[in-house]
């Protein structure tokens, strides 16, 4: 279904594209897509971009979970940080570029994943906090009663963790999409990573190689699709409730 949808989209784009651009047809795009998969520069770009996406996602998960539970420790901490959280969520990540560029340098290899971590971790924090607030307190009380235990850590491991898991997975899926978008866009802006898919798209566009540009778009879409499918499989196995 997806290849068919893309074929229709590419055909429509060709109809509206100026003749001078020599926009490729569907067959040309798809053949280039398969050729690009054996192209070293594309494979290198895939690995480079995937690496940054995974680093930013990993750091986002750690920070997201850590901050969520710290913020939830008591109402006082939450009341102090809630406005800050809402404040940061409202700022587009591109606005942070100058600040981080000064600190890290515009060509720093770390600037991309650090910038991607900001919105990604915020999404996880918001979702996990929502999960904690939504957790069934009767069930938590039930745990204390039937386990005969009083330990909050034990209750967290045995109950709260599982109660929050579906909210975390939902947040993680969105944060992953954010990470893909931010990493590829920052690469496209020639920041930090000279070998990523975003940089490759920019270079190929400069050379008016549109079939390769669309091949890379398909690849980026596939990376997102595969990662989402992976999360779905994991959540079906461990978060089916």
């Amino acid at each position: 279904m997806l290849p068919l949808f893309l074929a229709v989209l590419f055909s429509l784009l060709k109809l509206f594209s100026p003749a001078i651009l020599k926009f490729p047809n569907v067959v040309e795009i798809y053949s280039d897509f398969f050729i690009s998969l054996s192209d070293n520069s594309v494979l290198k770009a895939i690995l480079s971009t995937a690496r940054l996406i995974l680093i930013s996602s990993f750091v986002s998960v750690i920070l997201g979970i850590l901050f969520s539970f710290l913020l939830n420790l008591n109402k006082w901490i939450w009341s102090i940080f809630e406005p800050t959280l809402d404040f940061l969520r409202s700022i587009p990540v591109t606005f942070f570029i100058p600040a981080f560029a000064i600190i890290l340098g515009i060509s720093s290899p770390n600037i991309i994943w650090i910038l991607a971590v900001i919105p990604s971790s915020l999404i996880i924090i918001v979702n996990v906090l929502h999960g904690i607030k939504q957790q069934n307190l009767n069930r938590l009380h039930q745990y204390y009663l039937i386990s005969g235990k009083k330990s909050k850590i034990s209750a967290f491991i045995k109950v709260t963790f599982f109660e929050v898991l579906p909210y975390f997975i939902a947040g993680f899926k969105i944060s992953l999409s954010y990470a893909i978008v931010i990493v590829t866009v920052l690469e496209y802006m020639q920041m930090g990573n000279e070998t990523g898919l975003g940089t490759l798209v920019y270079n190929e566009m400069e050379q008016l190689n549109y079939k390769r540009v669309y091949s890379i778009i398909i690849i980026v879409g596939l990376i997102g699709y595969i990662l989402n499918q992976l999360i779905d499989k994991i959540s079906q196995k461990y978060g089916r409730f």
Partner: protein
Amino acid sequence: MHQTRLIYMGVILKNLTFQYRDSIHPIIEDLNLEIKENETIALLGISGSGKSTLLNLISSFQKPNSGSIELVNIDKSEVSYIRQSAMDMLFPWLTVKENIEFALKERNQLDSEAKERLVSLIKILGLTEKVNKKNYPTELSGGEKKRLSFACGLSYSPKLILLDEAFTGIDFSLKWELWSFLRAEIKRTKATVIFLADRIVFFNSKKQIDTKEVKVNKADIVDIEKSLSEPSFIKTKGETLKIYKEINEAI
């Protein structure tokens, strides 16, 4: 001043008062009550009359504003709380079998003898197929969830059993089946039981029920004889808990 009886095991409530933060009046006011070992009592009242709050206080889910709750020779880990909503006491990420074994596992008491007892518990409650199929609670019907909640609540042979409208919203045959199962368990463990109900219809033999009225707030006390003959009377008066003693005999 309330006179306390000497009891070997049970629950003693002394001058218990509880008020919700957003409420003007206390929902439970100066309540004194003693429930002895192997005694089964029912608390009757309309919704909002403080029945569930009282169970929450006894089970330490909430703390009273004043007064005391004494569990005599009953450890807090020997209290079971079976709720109206079965899913409130089940862990949906665990299978049916894991849910039933959970309490004993957490207490490191899941030995071969306990396992045998759980197998018979599963059989009595008709959950064998669900256990074999490794079903999760969300895959069960309403009645099966209710059965499972009873299995979980009674798996560790509690000394004090609190039932918060656990028989509400289920058909009569299941109600009877669970009640019979509960009675057998009470007989075996000599547990003290407090259960809540919103209507008296379930207990159809008024002559055998020894009643005691407990005023939990400033509302009028309901006429017990009238309420037995006209269950709807309780709904209109409300706000008073009725305590029915010796339900075992009545049933």
